[in-house]
Each structure stands twice: as structure tokens, then as C-alpha cells.
């Protein structure tokens, strides 16, 4: 509260990001403890969570006022013009403070109260149970067992307490291996493929330097390899570019030497590091934000940003994993440097290709809990939840979501969830509204007592499940299918609905998805009505004689039908998903932004007819 100097400013203008004619909406800006709120003259509300704010910028004073540009982590960009510089300055300062908290306890999740009691909250946290998930995969079994080595976070602080390792790996081997691995992140099970008896394992880079070896580490890898009874070799996939891995050797880190490990096949897959990814996204956003962008500038910007190249690299690595397991029946060990960014991307995406369970709504939550949250992807640092080192921020998880989106595009029937689900998750990794993504590892989360003080996101998503269902999902035909995406370059497209989520004018104005969803709902309702009516007929048949029935039937059915009709119409209108309600067909509204885009000629004031095109006027006189 102490950061808020001005709570309300009137006569603020909100500029359209892409309009060439500086068209704007006028309204009132409110600053609350958690949100920035703009209500325009049409009473339309724009809510911006402070935690979503990535940067605030005050531009040079203009005649109409003081411009304030706010960029959000969910790719919303708003451009306000505040009439008085003093107000603008106050808001600017407040937002700077409010968007960058120093302590976890000041984040929204600790004050957010969805009116649930303690037991409901606890139930929410228990919704996703990883022990159950490992059971579903078929572990523990005769080859893999639960290890209690990290029960007290003694061996590795950034791993979860429960870890699965080959049963032949003794505790001394584990401890020895962990000492030879960066941050103590020794090889553990990430996914077990029951049919192939092959595993995806994960770890961090070995501290091999130029020649160091570790007998325990070698033995642990051998144990993993032997835990697969079908195949005698296993792949070790280093997700980094070879050059980066080699450079690490000078710092006493590096990669596995094939000669030292029996029966491994070593492979680089060349995904760039978090810093390259951060600047790549930065470039992409700069290009997209340009007013009056030409097609050529868009594509050359897309190319030079390298973004889609990186997405393809992650996808190719995941496909390598899936093929190793499906085609060669070989287990795979994946690592990068610390084993919490690229490793999480590749392991989770690989599992998603292999296992249709992860393509369901609940399964996808489990996948995120397992490979991202529990294995210590540093959400708080990567998303910049706190005022920290900006060099630690990187869109690693966003890339994972984008890879999944590309898969949903190639396999429209294979996923239970739709694009809105991915967007909603992306919204909440940054929102700090729920506890799931706070902190950087499980140990830290326990210390923060998140399960007592905050709520879990998943039950809220499940409650809203309807919004996130893919109407084209066909669970039967894809249940056992391994996805084999085609990664020819032209299959990778710019994800407009993510990076321009809030730029309504760029999106299709009618959504086939919504219509199909509504039709499905209507069908269900009608089927239910049929059943009700049929059962009523039955009841009556039982009760009454036939000749009364014929008379009564007409009466009993008819009075109901008008209400049935109206209720259906009503539902159709309200059932549109919230973020799409604005995109319904837009024809003649003068507020339509597209109107101004086609020709700047019209944006000049109307009486200046002669100056329509300066060039023409000059040469024809």
C-alpha cells in the first residue's frame, strides 16, 4: 500500500497498439494493491495484474499528455496517455515498485483468497499425486525402485524427495555419482515405458573436465542400461550444442566420454542456452510490435530472431527420444548443463509424444508437476517473479508450451485440451496467483509453506474444464498412438494467439472451435431432453390406460417446448469462452480498429480533401 500514491486518474487515453491514426479510448485508470484497472467510456474493463508487468516505460511528454507504455509477460502491451505528468510519474513509480517484489510473501498468491476452507485447499493440493503417476507408469517394479537417498534433500537440494533409480544402484553409487554431477543432480528416472521396458532418465552434466572419471557414475549409468532387459546400449543425449559442452570442460564440467562408459551412445542435439532464448524472444517481440509491419519485414524478423529454429530444435530432440524408445527399444539419459531447463523441455515433450495420457487435461498437469515443478525448473527465476537477476529470466517453459501447440496443430484430434488451456497455464506461471509455480525447487516450496498459505491452480482449471476441452478430441483412435510429428520447416508457424493474445484485431472474427463446442453442448442437452421425455412417456404408460395417454401426451410435451427453446438460446450466448467473446463477428462498429488500417489517407481529417495524396496533388495541377 505504501507504494500507491495515486489510486485514480481520470481522462486517461488508451492507444491502440497497431492503429496508424492514434485512435484511442478515453477512460479512468485505477491502481489497486494487486491490479491496474482501466475502465473506458464504454465501461469495458482492462485488468492488468501487477505481477504480469514486465516493464514500464515513461516516454517523452507530448502535447496530449504523458505516455506510459506497459509491457506484460503475457505479451499484452498497453499504451496509456496520462494528461498530467505528475500523475503519470506517480503511477510509473508505483508500478515499478509493485511489479517487482523483493519477498515471496508479498506475492499475490499469499493474499489471494478464493473463499475455500482449509480442507478444500488441501484437497486441491492433493489433486496431482506423483506417486500415483509413477505407479501408473509401472514403477516400482523388478528393475526400478524408489530411493530414499534424497529423503532429506541431503544429496540434491533441487530434486524432489522421492526419486526412482535402478534397484541395482546402491546408495554409495548414488552418492558417488551425485558428487560427479553438476549441482548433485545424478541420473534418475523421468519416464518409464511399460511396453518397451525402456526409460527416459535425466541428470545434469558430469564434472568430467578434460579427463576426470567417476566409477560410481559409470556404474549408475550401467545400472540404468541394464535395467532395460531388451536393449544392451543406451543413449546419452546432451541437449547442448557441442561447442558449449566443450567449453564447459575448461570449467571442470563437460560431457560423458564414450570410452569410459560401457555401452552408451553419446549424442548432441544442439538446443541453445537460456540467454540465447531470451534475446531471441526479445527480437521476435520487437518485430511484432512494429506498426504497419510489412510481410517481408515480418518474415525476415521471424527468421533473424531464430525463434522457430529454436522451437524446431527442441521438437527434434524430443522426437529423437521417442524414436530411441519406440524404434530401438533403448533407454535414454538426457542432460544439459544443470538439467533443469533444456532437460525438462526434452524429457516432458518426449514423454508427451510417447504417452497419450499426457495429452489429456489431467495428464498434462501431471506432466508439468513431474518434469517441471518437482525436478526443479527454476520457475521463479525464469519468470522473474521477484526482483532478481534479469539474466536468469528466460522463456524456457513458454517454448515447451509452444512445442505442444505445434503438436496440437499437427494432430488436431490427439489432445483433450485446446489452445486456451495452454494460454491459461502460461498466464498463471507469471501471475503468482497460485502457489504451484512459486519458488525454484521443492525444498524451497516446502520452506515457504505454500500448501498452507496458497492455493493450487489445478483444481481451478479442472473446474473450468469445459472451456479447455478440444471438441475434435478422439480419445479412442489416439489412445495408444505415438505421435510422430513432421518437423519440416514449413510445419512451424508463428503462434499468433500467444504472442498477440490481446491484439483482437489480428485474429479471426469467428471461431469454429466455439461453434463446435456450442453444438456439442446443444446436442448433449437435446439428448438429455429426449431421455427425459422418453422416461416420462414410460411412466405415463405404466400409470394410465392407453386412451388417456394419447390425449395427454400432446399436452404434456407442448408446454415444455417453449421454455426449452429459450433456455437453449440463452445458453448459446453465455457459453462463449470469455476471451473469445470479443472476437465474435464484427461488422459495422465504428470502433473497429481495422477500419483505419487499410489506408492512412482516411485518417487525416475529412475537410482536407485536396491533400489526400500529396504527390498526386502536386503533379496534376
Amino acid at each position, binding site marked *: 500500500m505504501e507504494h500507491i500514491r495515486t489510486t485514480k486518474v481520470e481522462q486517461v487515453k488508451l492507444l491502440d497498439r497497431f492503429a496508424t491514426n492514434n485512435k484511442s479510448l478515453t477512460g479512468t485508470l485505477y491502481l489497486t494493491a494487486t491490479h491496474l484497472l482501466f475502465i473506458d467510456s464504454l465501461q469495458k474493463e482492462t485488468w492488468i495484474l501487477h505481477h504480469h508487468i514486465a516493464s514500464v516505460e515513461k516516454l517523452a511528454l507530448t502535447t496530449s499528455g504523458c505516455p506510459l507504455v506497459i509491457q506484460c509477460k503475457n505479451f499484452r502491451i498497453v499504451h496509456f496517455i496520462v494528461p498530467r505528468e505528475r500523475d503519470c510519474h506517480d503511477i510509473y513509480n508505483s508500478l515499478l515498485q509493485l511489479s517487482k517484489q523483493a519477498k515471496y510473501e508479498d506475492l499475490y498468491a499469499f493474499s489471494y483468497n478464493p473463499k475455500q476452507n482449509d480442507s478444500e485447499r488441501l484437497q486441491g493440493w492433493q489433486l496431482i499425486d506423483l506417486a500415483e503417476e509413477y505407479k501408473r507408469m509401472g514403477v516400482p517394479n523388478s528393475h526400478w525402485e524408489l530411493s530414499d537417498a534424497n529423503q532429506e534433500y541431503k544429496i540434491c537440494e533441487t530434486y524432489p524427495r522421492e526419486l526412482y533409480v535402478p534397484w541395482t544402484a546402491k546408495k554409495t553409487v548414488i552418492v558417488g555419482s551425485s558428487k560427479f554431477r553438476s549441482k548433485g543432480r545424478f541420473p534418475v528416472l523421468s519416464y518409464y515405458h511399460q511396453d518397451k521396458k525402456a526409460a527416459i532418465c535425466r541428470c545434469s552434466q558430469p564434472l568430467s573436465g578434460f579427463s576426470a572419471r567417476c566409477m560410481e557414475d559409470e556404474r549408475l549409468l550401467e545400472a540404468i542400461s541394464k535395467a532395460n532387459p531388451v536393449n544392451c546400449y543406451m543413449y546419452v543425449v546432451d541437449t547442448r550444442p557441442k561447442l558449449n559442452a566443450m567449453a564447459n570442460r575448461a570449467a571442470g564440467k563437460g560431457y560423458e566420454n564414450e570410452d569410459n562408459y560401457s555401452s552408451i551412445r553419446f549424442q548432441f542435439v544442439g538446443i541453445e542456452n537460456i540467454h540465447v532464448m531470451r534475446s531471441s524472444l526479445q527480437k521476435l517481440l520487437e518485430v511484432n510490435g512494429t506498426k504497419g509491419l510489412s*510481410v517481408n519485414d515480418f518474415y525476415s524478423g521471424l527468421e533473424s530472431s531464430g525463434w522457430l529454429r529454436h522451437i524446431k530444435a527442441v521438437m527434434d530432440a524430443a522426437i529423437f527420444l521417442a524414436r530411441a524408445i519406440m524404434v530401438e527399444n533403448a533407454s535414454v539419459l538426457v542432460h544439459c548443463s544443470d538439467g533443469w531447463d533444456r532437460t525438462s523441455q526434452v524429457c516432458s515433450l518426449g514423454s508427451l509424444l510417447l504417452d497419450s495420457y499426457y495429452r489429456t487435461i489431467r495428464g498434462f498437469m501431471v506432466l508439468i508437476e513431474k518434469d517441471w515443478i518437482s525436478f526443479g525448473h527454476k520457475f521463479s527465476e525464469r519468470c522473474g517473479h521477484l526482483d532478481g537477476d534479469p539474466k536468469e529470466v528466460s522463456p524456457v517453459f513458454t517454448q515447451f508450451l509452444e512445442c505442444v501447440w505445434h503438436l496440437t496443430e499437427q494432430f488436431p484430434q490427439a489432445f483433450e485440451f485446446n489452445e486456451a488451456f495452454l494460454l491459461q497455464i502460461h498466464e498463471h506461471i507469471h501471475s503468482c496467483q497460485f502457489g504451484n509455480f512459486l519458488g525454484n525447487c521443492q525444498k524451497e516450496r516446502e520452506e515457504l509453506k505454500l500448501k498452507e498459505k496458497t492455493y493450487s491452480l489445478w483444481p481451478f482449471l479442472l473446474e473450468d474444464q469445459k472451456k479447455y476441452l478440444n471438441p475434435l478430441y478422439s480419445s479412442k483412435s489416439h489412445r495408444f498412438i505415438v505421435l510422430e510429428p513432421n518437423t519440416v520447416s514449413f510445419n512451424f508457424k508463428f503462434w499468433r494467439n500467444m504472442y498477440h493474445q490481446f491484439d483482437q484485431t489480428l485474429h479471426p472474427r469467428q471461431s469454429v472451435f466455439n461453434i463446435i463446442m456450442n453444438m456439442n453442448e446443444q446436442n448433449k442437452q437435446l439428448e438429455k431432453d429426449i431421455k427425459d421425455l422418453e422416461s416420462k412417456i414410460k411412466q405415463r404408460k405404466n400409470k394410465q390406460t392407453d386412451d388417456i395417454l394419447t390425449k395427454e401426451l400432446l399436452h404434456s410435451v407442448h408446454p415444455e417446448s417453449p421454455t426449452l427453446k429459450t433456455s437453449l438460446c440463452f445458453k448459446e450466448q453465455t457459453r462463449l469462452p470469455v476471451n473469445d467473446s470479443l472476437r465474435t463477428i464484427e461488422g459495422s462498429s465504428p470502433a473497429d480498429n481495422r477500419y483505419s488500417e487499410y489506408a492512412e489517407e482516411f485518417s487525416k481529417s475529412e475537410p482536407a480533401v485536396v491533400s489526400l495524396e500529396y504527390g498526386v496533388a502536386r503533379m496534376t495541377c
Partner: protein
Amino acid sequence: MEFAELIKTPRVDNVVLHRPFYPAVEGTLCLTGHHLILSSRQDNTEELWLLHSNIDAIDKRFVGSLGTIIIKCKDFRIIQLDIPGMEECLNIASSIEALSTLDSITLMYPFFYRPMFEVIEDGWHSFLPEQEFKLYSSATSQWRLSYVNKEFAVCPTYPPIVIVPESIDDETLRKVATFRHGGRFPVLSYYHQKSKRVIMRSGQPLTGTNGRRCKEDEKLINATLRAGSRGYIIDTRSLNVAQQARAKGGGFEQEAHYPQWRRIHKSIERYHILQESLIKLVEACNDQTHNMDRWLSKLEASNWLTHIKEILTAACLVAQCIDREEASVLIHGTEGTDSTLQVTSLAQIILEPRSRTIRGFEALIEREWLQAGHPFQQRCAQSAYCNTKQKWEAPVFLLFLDCVWQILRQFPCSFEFNENFLIMLFEHAYASQFGTFLGNSESERCKLKLQQKTMSLWSWVNQPSKLSKYTNPLFEANNLVIWPSVAPQSLLLWEDTLLSFHLLPRDDAAQRPSPDADPVLLDF
């Protein structure tokens, strides 16, 4: 028959056909006057029927005595035939080359095709100008039908019947025709009932370097304005190009002579620039070894989506003049047969709900493309694989269809037809058993007696059994103006035409129809 001379080897056994994503098929290859047929002579195995006129280019290769012919089609498909025996292979190749480049239109397949279906409605009479005019005449009396071009004497590329302002007599029209490129005097393209404003189109005015003027021309187009109101002239060339045209006798309307009109230049590319764009695009799409950077830079260098954006932008501008500014518009480029028609027809898609129905869209193509004199024969003679550089080929109509597809993607419930309908039109424009897209103008079609000697595409497509394939199940008619987004982020690559042969349909979603599923009668 003359074809027999061209067919050196009519039949070869043990030929192997390769197509992407399909298993190779071994069978007998037959050449007829109009088709290349490969049959495995087994039940349940698909046969290949390929119209010679669909062949854009062929390549030959030899390994020992095994010859390979790679056939590149105008609809971008590429198929490969392995033919045992060098002589047979050479014979087949030269026969295909000769048969796919026949000079005489009357030797084309439509003149030999006999329909196997019952003609319910003769498509040649489905969209008569008189009927189309009735739609307007009930709303306005400002316009009349003129038969001044009955003998195609005033304008060889116009139809016999055109719609002109009521107050302008035929004599004036004749004079105006001498002042407009190709005799294409301004005629009505579209009457917008709500705003009561019109879209007209014409050829460029022949002002030349000394600024010639024509009082009748000024009178004609001023007759379409109400007192005190103003109109817009949209020139589809950049100002620079329009100025250069004056040196060749062309030009644009001078402000001094047309004070009631504001002129706006919108640059839309034409001819070889478009053709090269298509060649580059298809080349980029066909090479799957491109890494991401190379693919994106090739896609950019093709400029295809830039052309799409330019055309759509110009069409939106016209629609905006009519709907928002409530002003009439005259559109022309140089000849008024290419970019002009792209713009007038797309503006109607945006403004007019009727043109988004199947019937209405067919009427639009009939009116704004066929009768308006788009030279289909010249423009569609070759497609993306042609290596002989001729002057007249250009994917003008394909670009128009692509633009419609872009709008369809943005308003998926506002069109009665689906994507397959657009693909079907693209395929038939380049190679067809129907006469609809033959010839370059109405006068040529009359001379060829197409109505008597060939079948209309509309007769075939408007059968209820065929229409079901082309109908959009999500269509809900709406009377709104639909403004598409022209931002680069909103424009997409039309995969189902450009990439369809590289994308294996994985899910059941929209599989490409075979281009000619109709049974065909052999003409031998």
C-alpha cells in the same frame, strides 16, 4: 485421328508410379489423346488419370535402360513414372510433351468430353446478365443494360451486354471507348444497396503525354455521382507506373478534368512479377531439406504473401469507400483485366453477403472474371514449373482465390462454400474437362461456340450430389460487412494448395479431393 500421330507408343507395361505418401503402384501406362492413364489392372487399386493439359513440365532421367519421367502438374503435384526401355520412355516423354502443348483450343479435352451425368441445369445459362441486372433494377433506376457491344465491335474484351448509367446513350459510350484502353469504357461492377453507391471498372484513360481529355468520359463517370457528392478513383498501379504509362499513350485521370473525384494509387503487381513469385514459392515449398532460416527467407523472397496483402488492402480500401465514406468508386489499372478484377471482386466478397454463397460466388466469377474479360487462356497456360518465359502467364486468378481463402479463414462461418470449392476452381482454371475457363474473352468463347460444343463447369458443380462436398456446414448467413485483417501476422500460407503434396493427412481433417473424380469417356 490427328492425336494418333502424336502418340508414338500408346501402351507400356510394367511401369511404376511413385507419388508422395502413397505406395508405389506397378501397372500399365496408356496414352490417349487427352489422358495419361496408369492402371494396375487389379481391383481396389487406384488408377491414375491425368489430363495432358494439367502437365506443366516434364523431366527425363535414365539409369541404364530404365527411364524415369517426372511429371510436374499445373496444380503443383509431382509424380514419377519408371518406364522400362529407353525407347519407350523417350516415346512416352515426347508424346506427353506434344499432347500437353497443343496449339489449337478446339483440340482440347472439353471439346471431346461427354458428360456421364444428367444435366439438370445448363450452366451456360445460369448467370445471364439480364437476370443479374434484375437484382439491381428493382433497387435503382439509375442504370440500364446496353447492347452497344453486341458484335464485340466497341470493346473486344467486354461481353455483349453491359450495365451503364441510365443517362448515357450508346453513342457516348462509343466515344468513351476510344478514350479507354482496349475500349474498356467504365461499366457497373457492383451496386451497393445500403449506401446506394457503386463500384465501376474500366481500362486506363488514354491521356498520353499531352494530357488528352474526353468530355464524354467525364460526363459518363460524373453521371454516377449525386449532386455535390464525390467519388474515388482507385488506380491499381503506383503513381510512378501510372505516370510512365503516359509515354505509351496511357495515363490516369487528371484532377483538373475530374474535380469531383479523388484519385488514390495502390500498387498491385502484375504479369511476370506474379509468375516469378509463384515459381519461387512453389520451389521453396517443394524443397523439404530447407532449414528454418532458409525456408523463412525463401518464403519471404517469393513475395507471395506481400502480393496477397497488397490486393486485400486495395479491396478493403474500396469497400471502405463504399461502406464508410459512402462514395462511389471507379477502379482501373492498365488494361483493367487483372488487378482491377481482383479488387472489384474481393470488395464484393467483403461487402455483399450474396457473393459469399455458392451461387453468388459463381455469379461473381462469371460476371467479374469470365464476362469481364480476364484472359484465362493466356494467364493459365503455364503454372509454377514452366521454364519457358512467356509474357502472358500470371497466377492472377489463383491470387484472388488465395485472398478469398484468407478471408474465409478469418470468417469461417460467413461463407456457404468451403476451401475445397476454391481448390476445385483453381484446378479447373488450369486444366478441365469443362469449357468454362477456355478462351480469353466472351468474344473468343462465342467464336469457339463453347456453349454448343462443351459442357459448363457450373452444370457439373451445381448438382446437389457434387455441392455437398463444397458446402460449409458451419455457414450462417449474415448481412454484415466483413473486414479482414491484413496484418502479416494474420495472413497464412494456403497449405492445401501449395503444400498439400508434402503434408500427409494425419487426422481425418480436410483431405484433398481428387481433382477429377468424375468418370470420363475415352475419345478413342
